[in-house]
């Protein structure tokens, strides 16, 4: 007989896991205790609700990550199926998911850099340089966030690491990043812009003169410099110039004429003629470029750009022509979100 409340016994009661005697005791208690009857109803309701949850199939990418991790070489020997060996030996990993597991195992560390050619791995501090002159390549494991592959002839300085920021400085050369992090946690500084990672995959190249370009392969990133911002989605690229920051983004499948015209416009070469070409060559997808130009052209040209975009997709409710021509931030954002459905 249960003289105290039976809340903690009720799940087993509902699931038929009590003995006959215990069950009788609970029944007797429930007959006199409104509070426990209420608990019983809550438990029955909740159990019923949870039972409605569907089994989710694990996507193929999960096995691909496991397979890749099992196949990746360790510093000392092949990992291919050596279950008794310390997993912490692994230095080079192929996928972000596995990299996350390994770095957790080894404890927190800012930067872990491996030289792919000589198989060596070492921890490096903020302020140190990764220099792949001479044809070597390297991989930087960015804590738990992902990886950055460093191409030959590249100089990268490892920046400060804190709970709210991981920073790299790309002086010259090319890096390819595959990052899975909350937005604005991982940032790559270049001479002409900061690439603010919003959780995705991309390649950044910086030339000897400090000019660079960002090519997005997954997700999207923001290039920022002194208040000027360019949003670059997957399939698009954006150049950067020292002293003027991020250029105007365009999709890589845009016409050659449009791309040349955007470069001319950003360089200040025959801007009016360049704008003519952009407006003429633009497809619906090139509204990415046109939208950025709204705030970069002189006022007399803004109506022309507005009208060309509107031919493809008029502004949505809540974004009037006058607001857009006045560069109202909210109106511009609403229009960009509508246009993005065509990108």
């Amino acid at each position, binding site marked *: 007989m249960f003289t105290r409340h039976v*809340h*903690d*016994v*009720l*799940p*087993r009661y509902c*699931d038929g*896991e009590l003995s006959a005697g215990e069950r009788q005791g609970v029944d007797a208690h429930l007959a006199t205790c409104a509070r426990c009857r209420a*608990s019983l*109803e*809550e*438990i029955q*309701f*909740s*159990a019923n*609700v*949870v*039972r*409605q*949850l*569907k*089994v*989710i*199939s*694990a*996507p193929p*990418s*999960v*096995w691909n*990550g*496991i397979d890749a*991790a*099992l196949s990746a070489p360790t510093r000392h020997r092949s990992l*291919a*199926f*050596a*279950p*008794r*060996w310390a*997993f912490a030996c692994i230095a080079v990993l192929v996928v972000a*998911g*596995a990299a*996350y*597991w390994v770095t957790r195992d080894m404890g927190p560390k800012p930067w872990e850099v491996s030289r792919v050619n000589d198989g060596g791995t070492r921890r490096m501090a903020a302020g140190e340089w990764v220099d792949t002159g001479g044809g070597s390549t390297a991989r930087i494991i960015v804590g738990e966030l992902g990886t950055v592959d460093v191409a030959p002839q590249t100089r990268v300085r490892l920046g400060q690491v804190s709970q709210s920021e991981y920073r790299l400085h790309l002086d010259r050369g090319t890096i390819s990043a595959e990052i*899975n992090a909350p937005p604005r946690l991982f940032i790559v500084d270049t001479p002409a812009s900061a690439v603010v990672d919003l959780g995705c995959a991309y390649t950044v190249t910086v030339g000897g003169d400090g000019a660079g370009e960002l090519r997005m392969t997954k997700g999207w990133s923001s290039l920022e410099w002194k208040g000027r911002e360019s949003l670059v989605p997957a399939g698009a690229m954006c150049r950067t110039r020292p002293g003027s920051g991020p250029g105007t983004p365009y999709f890589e499948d845009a016409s050659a004429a449009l791309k040349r015209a955007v470069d001319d416009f950003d360089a200040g070469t025959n801007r009016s003629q360049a704008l003519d070409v952009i407006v003429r060559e633009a497809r619906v997808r090139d509204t990415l470029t046109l939208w950025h130009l709204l705030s970069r052209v002189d006022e007399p040209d803004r109506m022309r750009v507005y009208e060309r975009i509107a031919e493809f997709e008029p502004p949505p409710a809540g974004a009037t022509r006058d607001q857009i021509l006045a560069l109202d931030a909210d109106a511009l954002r609403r229009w960009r979100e509508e246009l993005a459905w065509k990108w």
Partner: protein
Amino acid sequence: MNGAGREISPDILDACRRGDREAFRALYEAYKDRVYSIAFYFFHANADAASEVTQQVFLKLMREIGRFRGDAAFSTWLYRLVVNACVDRSRGRRVDVVGEDPATLDTLAASTALSHEELFARREVATSVQQAIATLPPKLRAAILLRYFDDLSYSEMAAALRCSIGTVASRLSRGHRLLAKKLAPVRMALKGGE
């Protein structure tokens, strides 16, 4: 929804210990969806987290399979890995839970014509359930998901969670009652339809 085909054969486990890749793949295929689903709902329908946890669990399993002597059910050991991975990952992380608009759930509560099936077929209900589960304290969340995704018995759950059967029942009780409170509008709509 409950798992079927409970235990993996001893032959497969032996083969895994010997490093047989095909055997490991078979082991993975037998349990992947249940492991993934537990992690998926643990982290509020976060596929990235579910993928990471699933990878961690199976890689750790292969690293340590030599230690599994068969003196307990394999699934008990596996689910211990799953729970530890989920609870570890949830420590110190801000949980981005996409909430259901309260106005939507109020509307739901006000409707009286929904049948049981209609109610649970509604997207906002599924989303609310997922959200409610994801906001439970981690140990209660783990107990709820373990119970319903592989139909583990109380003694199996106690072994997986390294606690007594009484503690398992207590966590389920607290977890269910918290869920019921969080899902009050759904409960009211259900009563309205009865």
